[in-house]
C-alpha cells in the first residue's frame, strides 16, 4: 500500500513497517461455502465486496485504496446447528476469540459454546488489513453483531414460513425459534435442515442494545482456556509436518552488512543439510534444529559492514537528521508566537524516548510447505494477508497460490506486522524441496525485528495567572504522530511530527507514539501546575472540556484517594488522555526511602472508559497487563546499540517487568452502555509513565524527562526498588 492511502484511512505515520509498497489481490471467485461446510445458512456483508470487484474490474492487483472500507465477515449455520464465523482478525492474547464469540452468541441468541471462529486463514476468511489499531472491537465486533442479527432474521423467517406466522411475532432464544402464541418451537438445526440460503447483510438491522445484553457484557472466561493450561494448544512455533526440516539463518554481524564471500563446504558435508544463498540471504535447513545450528556455525562468511550511529549519540542524531520537506501531522491554530512573545509564564521542556523492543515471548516462527507452485505457510503474524502479499511478491507468485494460516500466537504488541520468518522458511523449503520450520532465537527477535521508535519531544507552553493555558507548542522528532494533539483547550497551538531517518529499523508498538506524546504532555502539565502552585487535578480540569475524559480523571481520583493526605515520603501522580477511542486516567503512589534513596511504586489505579464493555474480565486483564508492560518502558527498558549491533539482545541484558516489579494494581472500569464499544488493548498503556514521573516529581522535585526513567534517576543518586 502507498503512504498516501495509509494516511487516507487514518494510519499513523510511525507504522513504518507498513510503508513498503504491498499489493493485495482481492479474491475474485466466490468460494463454494456450501460445498466446504455443507448445507445451511450463509450470511455475508458481500455488498461491499461486490462493489470492490466491480471497481477493480479484471485487474486483481490493487492497492488498499481499492479495498472496501467496510470490514467483511462471513457466518455459516450448519444443518447440525453449529455456527462458524470467518474473520481475518487474529488472536494474539487480547482475547478477541472470546469477545467476538460473545457478540455472535448475543445477537444470534445461542450458547457461546456453539460458536466457532475461523481466524486469520487467508484461504477461508475475507480480506482483513490486520489486527492492530484497537479496531477489532469497534469494527469487527460490530460487524459480527450485524451479521449474526441478519442470520437470526433468516431463522425467524424460516420458522414464520413453516408455521405460517408473522416473523415479528416469533422469538429467538437458546438456539431455538419459539412461537409464544402456540408454544411451538424449533431448534436452529431443525430450521436449517436441507437449506442452502445465502443472505446479504441488510443495510439497517436493529441490534440488541448493550443495556439488554445477556452474553456480551459478561465476564465470559477464555473460550478455549483449557487448551492453554494443558499444553494442547498449538502455537505457530509448535506446528510440524512429516519430513520437515529445521531452518537457521546465518545473520550478518551488523545492520546493513552485505555478503562478500562465504565457504559452506563443511556445512554441505553434514547429513541432510541444504545451504541456500540468495543475495545477502544465507541459511541452512537440516533434519534437526541442533544440526541446523551446527551447520550454520560451520559456514565461514565475510561481511562488509557500514558505519552507523550508536545509542549514546541517538537524541542529537534524531534532532539533526530530519527528512527534509515532510511535515506529517502539522497542526496550527491561533498565533503561538505572539502569545509566547508577550507571556511571562512560559515553560520549555525536552523529552527523550528510547527505542524499546516488543519481546513477545513467542519469537517469530513459520512453517512453510510447497506443493508445486502452491505455497502454504503457518506463521505468527498480526497481518496474515500482509504476509501473504509479502510472500507473493518475494516469490513472484499470484496471491491465489499463497495461503497463510495464523494459529493463535504467543503475542505481538504491534511487533508482528511483518513476515520475516515466513519468507525465510519458504525460501529454504523451496531449495530443500521439503517443508521447513524456522523459529527465531531470542537474540534474533531482539535484533532483526523492528523497534518502537525512539524520539525527541520539545514542548513549550504559556499559561495565564488564572491557570488557563494560552499557548502550546509541541514537536515530536521521529517517535510518531499518534496522540500528538492535545485534548486540553488551548486557543493557540502549533503541533508537529518530524520524520527522521532512523538509525534502527522501527515500527508499530502497542499504542504507538501515543505513549511518548502523552508522557511529554502530561509531565509538562504537572510542571505547569507546579509553577502555578496548583493541584494537578484542578489544573487539568480547568483546561479540559471533554466530558468523558473529565470523568475518568475525576472518578479515578476519587477511587484512588487523591484528596487524602499523603504519608510521609509518599507522593501521588497522575497521567491520562484519549487514544484509540478510549479515555484513560492513571494514578500512581510512590514512596522514597530517604536512607537508601530507593524509590518504589506502591500502587497504581487506572480508570478507563471504552464504551459499552463487551467482556469486563477481558478488559480488566488488558488494563492491568498494559500498565505492567508500560512499567518496563517507563522505568527500565531501552535498546542499546553500537555501530549496527544490538548490545542487549537477551532477557539477561534487557530487563522486562517481572513479578517483583508489580505494585498493587487496581482497575476502575466505567461501563458506558450508551456508547459504542471500543478497544482496550492500547489506550490503557498511556497513563502509567507520566503518573509515575509526576508522583516522583511531587515527592522529590526531580523532573523526569526520559523514557526509561531509571538512568536519569540513577544519575541523581536514586534508584528504583
Amino acid at each position, binding site marked *: 500500500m502507498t503512504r498516501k492511502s495509509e494516511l487516507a484511512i487514518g494510519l499513523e505515520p510511525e507504522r513504518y513497517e507498513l510503508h513498503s509498497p504491498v499489493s493485495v489481490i482481492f479474491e475474485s471467485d466466490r468460494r463454494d461455502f456450501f460445498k466446504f461446510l455443507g448445507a445451511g445458512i450463509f450470511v455475508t456483508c458481500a455488498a461491499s465486496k461486490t462493489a470492490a470487484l466491480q471497481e477493480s474490474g479484471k485487474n486483481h492487483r490493487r492497492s488498499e485504496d481499492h479495498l472496501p472500507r467496510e470490514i467483511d465477515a462471513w457466518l455459516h449455520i450448519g444443518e447440525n446447528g453449529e455456527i462458524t464465523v470467518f474473520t481475518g482478525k487474529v488472536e494474539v*492474547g487480547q482475547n478477541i476469540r472470546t469477545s467476538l464469540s460473545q457478540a455472535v452468541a448475543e445477537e444470534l441468541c445461542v450458547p457461546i459454546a456453539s460458536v466457532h471462529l475461523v481466524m486469520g486463514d487467508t484461504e477461508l476468511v475475507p480480506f482483513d488489513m490486520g489486527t492492530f489499531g484497537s479496531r477489532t472491537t469497534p469494527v469487527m465486533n460490530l460487524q459480527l453483531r450485524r451479521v449474526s442479527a441478519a442470520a437470526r432474521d433468516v431463522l425467524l423467517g424460516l420458522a414464520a414460513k413453516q408455521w405460517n406466522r408473522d416473523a415479528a411475532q416469533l422469538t429467538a432464544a437458546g438456539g431455538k425459534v419459539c412461537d409464544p402464541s402456540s408454544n411451538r418451537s424449533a431448534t436452529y438445526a431443525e430450521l436449517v435442515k436441507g437449506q442452502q440460503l445465502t443472505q446479504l447483510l441488510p443495510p439497517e438491522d436493529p441490534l440488541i442494545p448493550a443495556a439488554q445484553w445477556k452474553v456480551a457484557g459478561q465476564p465470559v472466561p477464555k473460550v478455549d482456556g483449557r487448551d*492453554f*493450561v*494443558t*499444553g494442547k494448544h498449538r*502455537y505457530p512455533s509448535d506446528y510440524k509436518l512429516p519430513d520437515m526440516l529445521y531452518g537457521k539463518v546465518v545473520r550478518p554481524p551488523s545492520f546493513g552488512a552485505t555478503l562478500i564471500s562465504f565457504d559452506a563446504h563443511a556445512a554441505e558435508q553434514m547429513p541432510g543439510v541444504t545451504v541456500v544463498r540468495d543475495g545477502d540471504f544465507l541459511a541452512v535447513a537440516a533434519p534437526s534444529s541442533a544440526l541446523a545450528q551446527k551447520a550454520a556455525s560451520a559456514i565461514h562468511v565475510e561481511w562488509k559492514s557500514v558505519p552507523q550511529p550508536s545509542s549514546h549519540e541517538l537524541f542529537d542524531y534524531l534532532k539533526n537528521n530530519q527528512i527534509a520537506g515532510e511535515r506529517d501531522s502539522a497542526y496550527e491554530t491561533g498565533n503561538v508566537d505572539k502569545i509566547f512573545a508577550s507571556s511571562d509564564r512560559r515553560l520549555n521542556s525536552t523529552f527523550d524516548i528510547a527505542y524499546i523492543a516488543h519481546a513477545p515471548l513467542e519469537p517469530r516462527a513459520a512453517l512453510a510447505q510447497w506443493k508445486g507452485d502452491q505455497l502454504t505457510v503457518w506463521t505468527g503474524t498480526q497481518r496474515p494477508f500482509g504476509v501473504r502479499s509479502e510472500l507473493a511478491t518475494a516469490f513472484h507468485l499470484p496471491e491465489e497460490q499463497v495461503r497463510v494460516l495464523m494459529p493463535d500466537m504467543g503475542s505481538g504488541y504491534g511487533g508482528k506486522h511483518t513476515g520475516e520468518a515466513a519468507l525465510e522458511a519458504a525460501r529454504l523449503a523451496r531449495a530443500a524441496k521439503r517443508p521447513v520450520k524456522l523459529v527465531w532465537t*531470542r537474540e534474533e527477535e531482539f535484533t532483526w525485528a523492528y523497534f518502537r521508535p525512539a524520539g525527541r519531544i520539545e514542548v513549550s507552553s504559556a499559561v495565564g495567572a488564572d491557570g488557563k493555558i494560552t499557548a502550546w507548542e509541541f514537536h515530536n522528532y521521529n517517535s510518531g504522530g499518534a496522540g500528538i494533539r492535545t485534548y486540553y483547550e488551548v486557543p493557540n497551538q502549533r503541533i508537529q511530527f518530524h520524520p527522521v531517518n532512523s538509525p534502527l529499523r522501527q515500527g508499530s508498538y502497542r499504542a504507538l507514539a501515543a505513549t511518548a506524546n502523552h508522557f511529554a504532555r502530561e509531565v509538562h502539565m504537572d510542571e505547569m501546575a507546579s509553577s502555578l502552585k496548583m493541584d494537578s487535578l484542578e489544573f487539568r480540569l480547568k483546561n479540559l472540556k471533554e466530558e468523558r475524559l473529565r470523568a475518568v480523571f475525576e472518578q479515578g481520583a476519587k477511587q484512588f484517594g487523591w484528596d487524602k493526605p499523603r504519608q510521609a515520603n509518599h507522593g501521588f501522580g497522575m497521567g491520562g488522555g484519549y487514544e484509540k477511542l478510549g479515555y484513560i486516567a492513571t494514578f500512581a503512589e510512590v514512596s522514597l526511602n530517604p536512607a537508601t534513596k530507593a524509590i518504589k511504586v506502591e500502587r497504581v489505579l487506572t480508570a478507563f472508559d471504552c464504551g459499552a464493555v463487551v467482556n469486563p474480565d477481558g478488559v480488566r486483564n488488558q488494563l492491568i497487563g498494559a500498565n505492567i508492560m508500560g512499567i518496563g518502558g517507563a522505568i527500565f527498558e531501552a535498546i542499546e546499540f553500537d555501530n549496527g549491533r544490538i548490545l542487549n539482545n537477551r532477557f539477561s541484558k534487557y530487563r522486562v*517487568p517481572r*513479578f517483583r516489579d508489580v505494585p498493587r494494581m487496581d482497575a476502575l472500569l466505567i461501563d458506558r452502555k450508551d456508547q459504542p464499544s471500543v478497544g482496550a488493548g492500547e489506550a490503557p498503556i498511556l497513563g502509567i509513565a507520566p503518573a509515575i514521573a509526576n508522583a516522583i516529581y511531587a515527592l522529590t522535585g526531580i523532573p523526569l524527562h526520559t523514557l526509561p526513567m531509571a538512568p536519569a534517576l540513577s544519575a541523581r543518586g536514586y534508584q528504583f526498588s
Partner: protein
Amino acid sequence: MPTRYALKINGQIFSVDAEPDATLLSILREQLDLTGTKYGCGEGQCGACTVLVDGRAQRSCLTPVSAVTGKSIVTVEGLAKGDRLHPVQQAFLDEGAMQCAYCTSGMIMSAVSLLSNRENPSDADIVQFMQGNICRCGTYPRIVAAIRKASSAGKELVR
C-alpha cells in the same frame, strides 16, 4: 555421536537418540511432540521451558538430555489425571491468569514445583519463587492469585 537415552516422561519410558549435549527442550519438542513446553530465550531467563525433574522445577532449555536419564520428568501434558485438571491448572483457568498464554505452561510447572515443596506460601514467597518466569502480557497479579488459590488444595498438590 548420537547416543540412545531412556527418558521417563509423564510416567512413560521413551527411547531417544540424541547428542549428549542436546537439550531436554529440543527432545521434548522435536522428537516426542510434547510441544506444551516452550522455547522463550534459551538461557534460562524466562521460564517458558520449565518442566519438573524429580518434582522440582527445571529449565529444560539448559538441561542436557544426558543429565536426566533415570529421573522422573513431568511436562504440562502430564499434569491432568484424565479429564481432571491439576489444581494449579484449574486455578489458572478460574482466575483467567493468562492472555496469550505462551508462558502459561512454564508458569504452571513452576507453581506446581513451589506448591509441592512448600505449604501455603505467602504472596512474597510466590513472587520470589516465580521471579524467573516472564509473562510479557503482564498477567502477574492473576498468576499470584491463581497460585494462592491452588495452594488451598492441600494434599492433592503433592504428587
